[in-house]
């Protein structure tokens, strides 16, 4: 089994290095094909590992070599394939295989084609390290590695100012969170003596609650950055400047869920500190609502999907925070499928519309893009949680968990958000695919994407439809490691009412969205009443948070930096030069003594002699009468 572990881990690295060889050469089709094949081999290996684990096989645990060893610290490159990591590996390799194949078509005309695959495969490698590592330090390698690749891929079109800006924003914001993560790792090390999961987690049971709380908080800060939770969420929407396959893979399916993975992986820690868990769940529920509200009015297709991702991450955190780790992991998996599908569909639309992102400028595309239309509709149905699609099984379980744990506020918020989700998803679908063909005003001639791109997407479509049937086998698999409990509402009647009620609520939201937007005919120009209402402006400007960051953090930082530079020159350095110039000017001023006039110099000589003599006399007297002087001084109270 170790062989498959190594293939799954290193095939992406080989792929990345192979593609990197051609970075500076013109586009080579075979680079994309070989990269896809290598990633596919990682997927196959992961599948073999999955069947091994499903068959009740032992956890695969290897230690490749020492990384750092000093003092009592020992960090190896160790990798573990257990129920959690194998789930993540499946998600990562499956989605990335599809995205690789899709990208061959999507990046067809880009001159950075080879470079794109180098970065994309490097990302997969980092993500695999992240999920497979058996210690926190290895996790951190992957954690930073995905950050780096995300930087490279958001800023892939580096000639665009906005893209590079967004790349730097994402990197720096993640760095802030990584600091928290790093502190969390230090806490783990100094309190448990190890960073290995299998040593550190059992040791935590013996620690006092305050330490554990800090540990949990700092690790969660790390998770907040990667998973773009409030208040570190602004980078995710801006990250949509990257190529769309990147958004699908990194900013929807895999990297952003790393935070959720961390919380699930640390379930033994968070089980010990339920109050931190409750905070996580509350923040998750808040973010779910908060992000969904911003998606309601946005006019950028990719940003809408990004906010929806953010909102779904909130769901996952809500579940994980309430201790329903397996539900969170299941939703993570299901979400990866339908959200990647949604993004790839959006990529098709973008291609067809020549990179136009405003859905109000589209409309009626279902005639020319039938395949994409069907896929995006089904992905949206899955996202909205309509039976029998994937989202129904994962999201409803989260709601049930919240209900069963008697956190009614969280339940209420999540339920309401489910309605919003359905509304904004179908607002998007309706605006893009239904109604009048508004794009004709702009002289665009849309066309469907390459056939092989649609075929590549079809496994995701399939999984978005049927992932629900995996719920029971999945539960049985992770039960052992996540200490899972099934959430049963006590009475059948309550459960039925809840299910039907939720479905009806969501269904009504979808209908409302269709009714309102399916026959939209004009491109809004900012003059309508609703566009000038306060709420609309607030949501459209993302609660003015990016503006606030720009105004109250970035600008003061710039100004403070400039001021500190002035301080450096005009205070610190000037005082050094000042001290030097004291000596210099002392010399300048006293050089007149050296007038060359013998008479003057003789006078100075006499002065010097007199001064020295008198000093000698004074010190001689002081030494002789030291006792008396001391008594006089002490008499004066000195």
């Amino acid at each position: 089994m170790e062989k498959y572990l190594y293939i799954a881990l290193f095939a992406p690295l080989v792929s990345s290095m192979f593609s990197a060889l051609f970075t500076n050469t013109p586009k080579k089709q075979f680079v994309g094909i070989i990269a896809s094949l290598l990633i596919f081999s990682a997927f196959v290996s992961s599948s073999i590992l999955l069947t091994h684990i499903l068959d009740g096989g032992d956890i695969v645990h290897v230690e490749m070599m020492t990384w750092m060893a000093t003092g009592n610290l020992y960090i190896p490159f160790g990798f573990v394939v257990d129920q959690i990591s194998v789930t993540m590996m499946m998600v990562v390799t499956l989605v990335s295989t599809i995205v690789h194949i899709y990208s061959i078509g999507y990046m067809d005309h880009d001159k950075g084609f080879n470079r794109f695959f180098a970065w994309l495969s490097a990302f997969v490698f980092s993500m695999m390290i992240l999920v497979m590592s058996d210690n926190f330090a290895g996790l951190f390698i992957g954690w930073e590695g995905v950050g780096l690749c995300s930087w490279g891929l958001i800023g892939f079109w580096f000639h665009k100012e906005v893209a590079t800006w967004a790349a730097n924003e994402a990197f720096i914001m993640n760095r802030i969170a990584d600091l928290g993560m790093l502190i969390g790792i230090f806490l783990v090390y100094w309190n448990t003596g190890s960073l290995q999961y299998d040593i550190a987690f059992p040791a935590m049971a013996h620690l006092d609650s305050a330490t554990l709380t800090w540990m949990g908080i700092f690790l969660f800060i790390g998770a907040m950055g990667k998973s773009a939770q409030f208040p570190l969420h602004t980078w995710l929407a801006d990250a949509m400047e990257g190529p769309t396959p990147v958004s699908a893979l990194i900013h929807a399916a895999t990297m952003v869920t790393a935070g959720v993975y961390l919380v699930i992986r640390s379930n033994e820690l968070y089980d010990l500190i339920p109050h931190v868990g409750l905070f996580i769940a509350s923040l998750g529920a808040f973010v779910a609502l908060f992000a969904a509200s911003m998606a309601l009015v946005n006019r950028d297709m990719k940003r809408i999907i990004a906010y929806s991702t953010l909102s779904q991450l909130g769901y996952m955190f809500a579940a994980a925070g309430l201790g329903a780790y397996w539900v969170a992991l299941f939703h993570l998996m299901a979400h990866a499928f339908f959200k990647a599908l949604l993004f790839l569909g959006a990529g098709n639309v973008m291609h067809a519309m020549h990179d136009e992102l405003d859905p109000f400028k589209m409309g009626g595309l279902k005639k020319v893009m039938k395949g994409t239309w069907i896929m995006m509709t089904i992905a949206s149905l899955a996202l909205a949680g309509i039976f029998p699609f994937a989202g129904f099984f994962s999201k409803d379980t989260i709601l049930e968990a919240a209900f069963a744990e008697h956190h009614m506020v969280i339940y209420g918020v999540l339920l309401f958000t489910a309605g919003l989700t359905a509304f904004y998803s179908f607002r998007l679908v309706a605006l893009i695919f239904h109604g009048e063909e508004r794009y004709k005003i702009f002289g665009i001639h849309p066309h469907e994407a390459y056939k092989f791109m649609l075929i590549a997407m079809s496994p995701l479509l399939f999984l978005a439809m049927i992932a629900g049937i995996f719920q029971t086998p999945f539960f049985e698999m992770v039960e052992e490691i996540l200490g899972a409990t099934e959430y049963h509402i006590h009475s059948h009647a309550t459960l039925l009412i809840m299910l039907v009620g939720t479905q009806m609520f969501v269904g009504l939201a979808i209908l409302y969205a269709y009714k309102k937007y399916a026959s939209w005919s004009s491109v809004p120009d900012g003059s309508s009443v609703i566009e000038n209402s306060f709420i609309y402006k607030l949501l459209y400007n993302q609660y003015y948070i990016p503006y606030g960051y720009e105004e109250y953090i970035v600008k003061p930082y710039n100004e403070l930096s400039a001021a500190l530079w002035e301080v450096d020159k005009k205070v610190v350095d000037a005082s050094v030069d000042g001290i030097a110039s004291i000596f210099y000017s002392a010399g300048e001023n006293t050089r007149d003594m050296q007038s060359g006039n013998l008479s003057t110099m003789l006078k100075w000589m006499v002065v010097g002699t007199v001064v020295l003599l008198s000093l000698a006399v004074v010190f001689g007297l002081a030494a002789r009468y030291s006792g008396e002087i001391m008594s006089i001084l002490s008499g004066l109270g000195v």
Partner: protein
Amino acid sequence: MLDHILSILIFFPALAGVMGFMIDKGSIRAYGVAVAFVEFALSLWLWFAFDSNVSGMQFMENIALIPSFGINYILGVDGISLFIIILAAFFTMIGIASLTETKNEKNMIITLLFLEMTMIGVFSALDAIVFYVFWELSLVPMLYIIGAWGGPMRIYASVKFFLYTFAGSLVMLVGMLFMAYFFYQATGTWSFAILDWYRLILPESFQLWLFAAFFVGFAIKVPMFPFHTWLPYAHGQAPTIGSVILAAILLKMGTYAFIRFSLPLFPDASVFFMYPIAVIAIIMIIYTAMVAYAQKDVKQVVAYSSVSHMGVIILGTFALNVEGITGSVFLMIAHGVVSGALFLLVGVIYDRRHTKLMSEFGGLAHVMPRYATIFGIMLMASVGMPLTINFVGEFLSLLGFYEQSHILTLLAGIAIVVGAIYMLTAYKKMFFGEVTKDENRNLPDVNKRELIALIPLAIITIWLGVYPKPVLEPINNSVEAVVQLMHNKSTTEEAKSRIPNVSGVVISKTSTREAH
């Protein structure tokens, strides 16, 4: 030959430098490269022959100079100094090999060989006076390099560099003389040998004063805030090769000296001054990172980033535990490699455009993709990306200090945020966007001569980031010995508790009681 390998390492380049005066101008570069290569090969041989399981000094040499005052020519290396010596030989080699066309090339190469002598001398000296001699001698070649080949303000910059560091060193010399005097009082014999001094236990009040005296000399060299202002001038005016050597090796003298002198000689004082120094280190980290962000000249960005990283090294040193000190020694090497490479990279673009202002660039990734790639690797190493060399050092330094103070480590950890801010911003200004200036449209990418220097550095950056063990292990063994010595020597309760007792390593010690 192994018995005298350190002397050979020190004096071979100097002798070769003297011989260099007789070499024809046309062949001086080949001569210089050959000498530096032999020297580097010798240093590698030193590593090969080095027994990494021994924590103490190896390849010791001892020749009496002034026996009546206990001044002897004592050399030796341990895991702490070994890699800095190799690094010095390495950087001299690639520095000469990648030297761009300069006037008076012969003088430059001979100066570099002399500089190499002084650098290796500092790191292998085990006698305070010999150490001091090399320490001060190293100023002269650097003064010459900045003063003769520097930019428009070279005289100001070089004189400032010389006088500032020289003034600090004098205070250190006074400290050394006092230390020898105390040793004489305690034992009745004069000695300037550092290993003898290690056995002397001083009362805390003496330690505080002596620590302060040594601190002035070391802090200016590092340079620590607020003594850092000579550095931007020196870097700003120095030619590329000067900046490379200055950042990669000369700055490390200060931090190395902290570990060689301050910690083992004055353990109680080290504990006493730990918090103030940590606060200074944090100011260094954050303040200079912000100043670096405000710079318009890319070389100044790298210069200030050096100061910022040196702050992390200082912090790791004053963690006073094995993890932290090992991390700081490793970070010295890491920072040497990375900042040296960054200065070389700045030199590459300066040779093409004769400007270092970032506003003059933009979109360079289009015209110089290989340059952008190598710069990107070094950028990521500089911001401490895992699996690059810097991360190992920074991680261990911060991890080590976390044991001493949580809050201060949290503040110091801001390094990874502010470091990313100034580095990424500088990279974006230089490489991203469209090419706006016509002069930049046809810039040639890095050529072979530059690659000779940059490729090995990139390889080391990744290799030691992925597999630091060959370097980390010898460092760790020697650091354990230092920490154990400090624990044994410390007298105050607080110091005993702050400095861990590394079990398994026992150092024979002579207490003052015995010395009397």
